[in-house]
Each structure stands twice: as structure tokens, then as C-alpha cells.
């Protein structure tokens, strides 16, 4: 991708499935990587860094909790000190607490969801944006199709993902004069362990005793316009890399949907 060679990207949630794919796509495009995740994901993070280095790029691992501004600032400062600059921020870390009707969600699950999904992103940008140089850069915030519409039993998650759009729209207004672009990406179902697990299969197919992946895929496929049950992490990473590259130099304050037509389906 043009303009990414020898840049530095910061990725949160870098030990997770999709976070690792982001790191590797950026490394493959010629960027060095500051890969952050929380301490519980230290092993996965090490594997991400190993794979990024195998692509010939530098990768600094950092352990920090996105809900802790001090930890985030320290980890980002250390990464930038080692790699010398920062051009792109990919705020990818997020979570999905157990759902339920909006009035029965626990205060703990509500707060934890806002803390990680919303304040975690603000912390990331607050600690990271000051390192982006005079030539500008790109902030990509991973929201969700739930950042654009509601679904049952997800009020906390949906509120947090909508709020990210608001945060991005204000950041884009505030940082535009520094040539920093700010956009959100909205994946539909992604074919990671978050979706591909037995509990999800049972939720999608309450009519079956022992649903298989294909049984669940059938339901998910019927929700999309394209005949696929989910997108892959690579599809999300492709969109993120595009937004970070010079090919998207005049794209800011936008919402890029990567959902196989989930939110566009009208019949």
C-alpha cells in the first residue's frame, strides 16, 4: 500500500484474532508495529510480534490495559521511543459482555462495556495522537454494525459502538487541521472464535439440539446481501490498511462498513 512503508502503526488488542491480522497486514505493507494488549493476552501478543518480525519489520510489544490511561501512555511512549515515530493508530481492542434486555443488564456489565469499548479508545487516542508528526496520519477506530443500528439484547454494546462514531466525528473535526484523518470501520459478523463457537451456534439455532457451524452459518448467511455467513478478519484489515494509506488521503470523518450487506439488507 502506498505511503505505509517505514511508517509506524499502533494496534490495540493486538493479541486477539483480528488485532493480530491488523498487525500482520501493516507489517506486510512495510510498517513497523507497536502491538499492545492486556497482560492476560501476553502469550498471544508474543506470537503476534513473532509473526510480524518474520515479515521483516520491527515490532514492539507492550502490555497495557486500555482502561488505564497511565498504562497506555507509558506503553505508547515506550513504543514510539523505540521505533522513532507514529503515523497510524488502530483502536481495535473491544469486548462484548453477556447480553439481555436493556433493563436487565447489570450495572457492572454496562460500565465495563463503556470502559473498554469507549473510554479505552479515547485513552488510546489521547495517549497516541500527540505522537503523530507534522505530516499527519490516520486514526482508525473499530466500531461495529452496532455502531449504526440496534439489535436485541445489546444496548450496552450498541451504545458504546455508537458513541465511538461520535468520538471519531469530533476527533476528525479537531485533528483535521493537523492532517490527521479519523474514521470508523464497521464490521458485521467476523469469522473468528467470537462467532464460531458452540454457544453462538445454540443462540442462532434454538430450534436444534446440537447445531453445527453450518447450521449457524445458514442463519447468518440469510441476514447478509452477499451469500456468505461472515467476513474474515483479513477483510476488516484490508479496509483498515486502506484508510491508513495515501490512497485514502482525503477520507476523514467517514464510516466504512465491511459487513457483506448486513446493514443494507431491506428484504
Amino acid at each position, binding site marked *: 500500500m502506498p505511503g505505509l512503508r517505514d511508517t509506524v502503526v499502533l494496534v490495540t488488542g493486538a493479541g486477539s484474532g483480528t488485532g493480530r491480522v491488523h498487525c500482520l497486514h501493516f507489517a506486510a505493507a512495510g510498517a513497523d508495529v507497536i502491538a499492545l494488549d492486556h497482560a492476560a493476552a501476553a502469550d498471544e501478543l508474543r506470537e503476534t510480534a513473532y509473526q510480524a518480525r518474520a515479515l521483516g519489520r520491527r515490532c514492539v510489544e507492550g502490555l497495557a490495559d486500555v482502561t488505564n490511561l497511565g498504562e497506555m501512555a507509558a506503553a505508547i511512549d515506550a513504543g514510539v521511543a523505540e521505533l522513532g515515530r507514529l503515523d497510524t493508530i488502530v483502536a481495535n481492542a473491544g469486548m462484548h459482555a453477556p447480553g439481555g434486555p436493556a*433493563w436487565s443488564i447489570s450495572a457492572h456489565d454496562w460500565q465495563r462495556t463503556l470502559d473498554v469499548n469507549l473510554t479505552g479508545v479515547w485513552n488510546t487516542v489521547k495517549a497516541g495522537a500527540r505522537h503523530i508528526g507534522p505530516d499527519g496520519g490516520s486514526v482508525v477506530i473499530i466500531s461495529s454494525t452496532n455502531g449504526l443500528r*440496534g439489535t436485541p439484547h445489546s444496548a450496552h454494546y450498541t*451504545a458504546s459502538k455508537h458513541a465511538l462514531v461520535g*468520538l471519531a466525528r469530533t476527533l476528525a473535526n479537531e485533528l483535521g487541521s493537523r492532517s490527521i484523518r479519523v474514521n470508523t470501520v464497521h464490521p458485521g459478523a467476523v469469522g473468528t472464535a467470537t462467532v464460531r463457537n458452540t454457544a453462538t451456534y445454540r443462540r442462532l439455532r434454538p430450534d436444534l439440539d446440537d447445531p453445527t457451524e453450518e447450521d449457524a452459518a445458514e442463519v447468518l448467511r440469510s441476514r447478509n446481501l452477499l451469500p456468505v455467513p461472515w467476513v474474515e478478519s483479513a477483510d476488516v484489515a484490508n479496509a483498515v490498511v486502506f484508510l491508513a494509506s495515501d490512497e485514502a488521503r482525503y477520507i476523514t470523518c467517514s464510516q466504512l462498513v465491511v459487513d457483506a450487506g448486513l446493514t443494507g439488507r431491506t428484504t
Partner: protein
Amino acid sequence: MSALRLAGKVALITGAARGIGRAQAVRFAQEGADIIGLDLCGPVETVSVPSSTPADLEETGRLVRQAGRRIYTEIVDVRDLEGLQAATDRGVDAFGGLDVVCATAGITSRAMTVDLSENAWRTMLDVNLTGVWHTCRVSAEYLIARGGGSMALTSSIAGLRGLVGVGHYTAAKHGVIGLMRGLAHDLAPHDVRVNCILPTNVDTPLIQNDVVRVGFRPDLDRPPTRDEFAEAARRMNLLAIPWVEAIDVANAALFLASDEARYITAITLPVDAGATQR
């Protein structure tokens, strides 16, 4: 429409001491509703605009009674889930049920997003987003028990677009729309409708103060006058007005609360003089 549009209904309103909340209380009372009016009536840390007072809430009570309806008022913080539940329970006990909820309580403060203090960020989310969820959470089962109802959540034009210097406010107000869209799904089977109202600037104490006015006229080296503020505020709207009045927001909430809007749910209703399209 000669019959009263909320005859025999009970409406709970947060932020009822002044501004939009008071206008909703009085307007709903004029249309036959009894009112549960809640407000903090005091300052919130990190917020420098002048706060509401117990005297403000008393005045709302006087106006509702003057309109011929009953009102139950209580001073409570929407951030306090248990306190809000208790106040709501007592209000509903007083009137025997609940039909309409207006989550109106809100705050404002100002700084560039990356310069906001953690406390200002957190307090904003606590009041303007979690406070709205608390309000819905403590009242939802009363509406379900009634067999239907209406919730109107006050978002903002900042629920649909970004505004410089209020990133925390914009995030919270977008979040309120997400909350509404989730709630609307969860409550639809119970015939409870949930919608958002998105005002542009409203002529209330929340904007008519030096803290907010200064943000609109960075070109001046002093707080602008009301007229100088109006000149800048007018440029946000399509219509040639600087701000709407609280009654305009109350009228929109009344429409959404009434049977005239019986099939309207999960919408974002701008009361914005065209601001979101400018």
C-alpha cells in the same frame, strides 16, 4: 384534537427543574398528565455552567399545579442507580403507574478531545449516557406492566455529527442513540416505544452562560453578549434563528408520548432548525 392528549397518563421526567425538562413537565400537564419530576438541583464536578437549584424544581412544581395537575418531585442524581430506582418507585406509588419517560437530565463542559481530563470525560459519560440508561432501567418494567408506553431520550444534533470541543458530549449523545436503538428492539414486544429527540441549541441556562458563549466566539477576547452569541449560533442552523425554545423540544416529546405517534419507534427526531443538514 380537542381531547387532552395525555389524559390520565403519568410521565417521569429527569432534569425537570428547568430548561427542557421543565417545559416537558408543564406541557404534559397542560395535556392531562401527572408528573414525576426529578432533578439533581445542584452542581456536578467538572461542569462550570450554572447548576439548577431546589427553588427551580419548586417552580416547576408550581407551574404544573397551576396547569391543574399533580406533581411528585424529588432531588436525585441520575448517576445513582439505587437512589433513582427508589425515587421512581415512590413517584409511581404516588400516582399508581407510569406511561411516559423523558430522560432529559444532562450536562455540558468543554475542551479539545485529547486535552479533556479523565474526570471530565468520565463524568460526561456517567451523566449523559449511563444516567439515561439508569432512567430507562428503573422505569422500563413499569411501562411493561402498564402494557405499553413511550420513552423519549434527549440526544442532540451532536448525536449525529461531530462538534469541535465537545468530544465527550458527542460520544455520549451518539451513545444515547445507540442505547435507544437497542432499547427499542427490547421493548417493542411490550408495545413500549423508544425514540430520541435531537435539539440544536436550546435557549436554556445550559447554553446561555459565558462558558458556552465563549466557545462560540473564539474571535472575541471577552465573553460575547447574547446578541453576539446569537449571530454565531444562527450560522449552525438552516432556518434564520439562533436557537429553538424549550417548548419546541417539549412539543416534540409530547407528540412522541401521545397516541398520535403510536407506530413511531426507534427514530431520531431532530428539532434543529435544519442544523444537521447544514
